[in-house]
Every structure is written in structure tokens, then in C-alpha cells.
């Protein structure tokens, strides 16, 4: 099982902050992005293709090439604007 979390504009645009995906190894972040696009449709494909998309795996910034393990928490969000 993978947990996928979305924040800020991504969460609003895609209408969910968290979802679970069945696990199928081996998978990279890029594979999961493809899967989400295939099952979620155009809005998901566009949101996850954004050039400034930030990817985090288990609370650390990561990349599309990152290999995932069962139980990982994957997050997608726009550039941060705190402070």
C-alpha cells in the first residue's frame, strides 16, 4: 500500500488530500504519477506534469526516479510560500 498526499492548490484542484494505492513492486515515483494520470484523467495528468511540482517521499524531497517501497508516503505539492 502507498499513501499519496496532496497539498494546497493541488489538493483543491484534484479534490482530495489523501488517497491509498495498492502496492505493486517495483515502482518509481514516475510510475505512480503515470498510474494516477491513467486512473484520474486529464486534471491529474496536467497537475502532476507541472514543471514546479515538488515531490516528497516519507517527508523528504525526492524525484521522479526515486524507487518506492511498500508503505511509503508520497506527497505532491506546489512551491512553498510560508514565512
Amino acid at each position: 500500500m502507498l499513501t499519496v498526499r496532496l497539498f494546497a492548490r493541488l489538493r483543491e484542484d484534484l479534490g482530495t488530500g489523501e488517497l491509498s494505492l495498492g502496492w505493486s513492486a517495483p515502482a518509481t515515483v514516475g510510475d505512480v504519477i503515470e498510474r494516477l494520470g491513467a486512473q484520474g484523467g486529464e486534471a491529474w495528468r496536467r497537475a502532476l506534469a507541472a514543471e514546479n511540482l515538488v515531490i516528497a517521499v516519507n517527508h523528504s524531497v525526492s524525484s521522479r526516479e526515486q524507487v518506492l517501497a511498500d508503505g511509503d508516503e508520497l506527497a505532491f505539492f506546489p512551491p512553498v510560500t510560508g514565512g
Partner: protein
Amino acid sequence: MLTEDIDAGGLERWLQREDGGVGAIVSFTGYVRGRGEGGDIQRLWLEHYPGMTERAIGAIVEEATRRWALRAVAVLHRVGELGPGARIVYVGVASAHRGDAFAACEFVMDYLKTRAPFWKKEFTGRGERWVEPRDSDEAALRRWGAPGGSGRPDAAEGSA
């Protein structure tokens, strides 16, 4: 991460805490502006990523402690709904001399703005909008010798 007001005076006392080695405290307090790019701001919504935010701030403080001789560091950030004039963030740094405290305080703020997962949404009379990151914030970060990038929080371990 706080949902109530930030007590800047109490934090300064905590930073000093009868530590004879503290000769300087520099602090920064960020406030909600009354006017934004979208007009008069009625309220601000602060979203964060629980767990990752604490970890990112911990990594930033750890890096500051590695670069400068610091006696204590306090970082507090509000989340949730805030009105104009409310404190959003407080960074306080205590050191023996002012140079380290000034530099470290600015460093922590520059990193926090571009690396800690927080997002601001403004509500004005004309509607709501997510605040866009500013190029000047990334430019501020590069002064510290950080690699350029896209608003990415640090990955190192640490505690807030």
C-alpha cells in the same frame, strides 16, 4: 506549529534563559499584511504538511547551528486562519556576539520561506488566491551558497 498567538517576549526570555554565554539575541517576526496583490486582505489561510514541516525546520536549524556559534534557536510558525496584523512566524537566535545572531536569523528565515512546506492563501473582497512564490526569495537563498532550485524543503534529519 501553533494555532494561537506567538509570545515574542516570552520567547526572548527563553532564548536568554540565564545563559551567561548569551551576548546577543536577534529575532524576526513576520506579520500578515493588510494589503496583498489581490487587494485588501480579509484573512489568510496557512496550510502545512504535518511531520514534514517539523522535519524541514529541524534541518534548517541544524544547518544554522553548523555554520554559526549559536546558544539557542527558536522557530515558531502559525498555521490555520489568521487576520491582518497577526504574527505568522517568529525566528529568534541567541549567540555570544551579534554577527552570528544576525546572520543565522536571516539564514533561517531565507530557508524557511523556500524550503519548509507551508502554503499561504489570501482572502480578499475580490475572492481567494494561493500566494505565488517570489523569485526574490530564491535569490535570497542563493546568497548562502545553496544550490538553486524550486521551493524544495531540505531532506536532512532534524527536530523542530
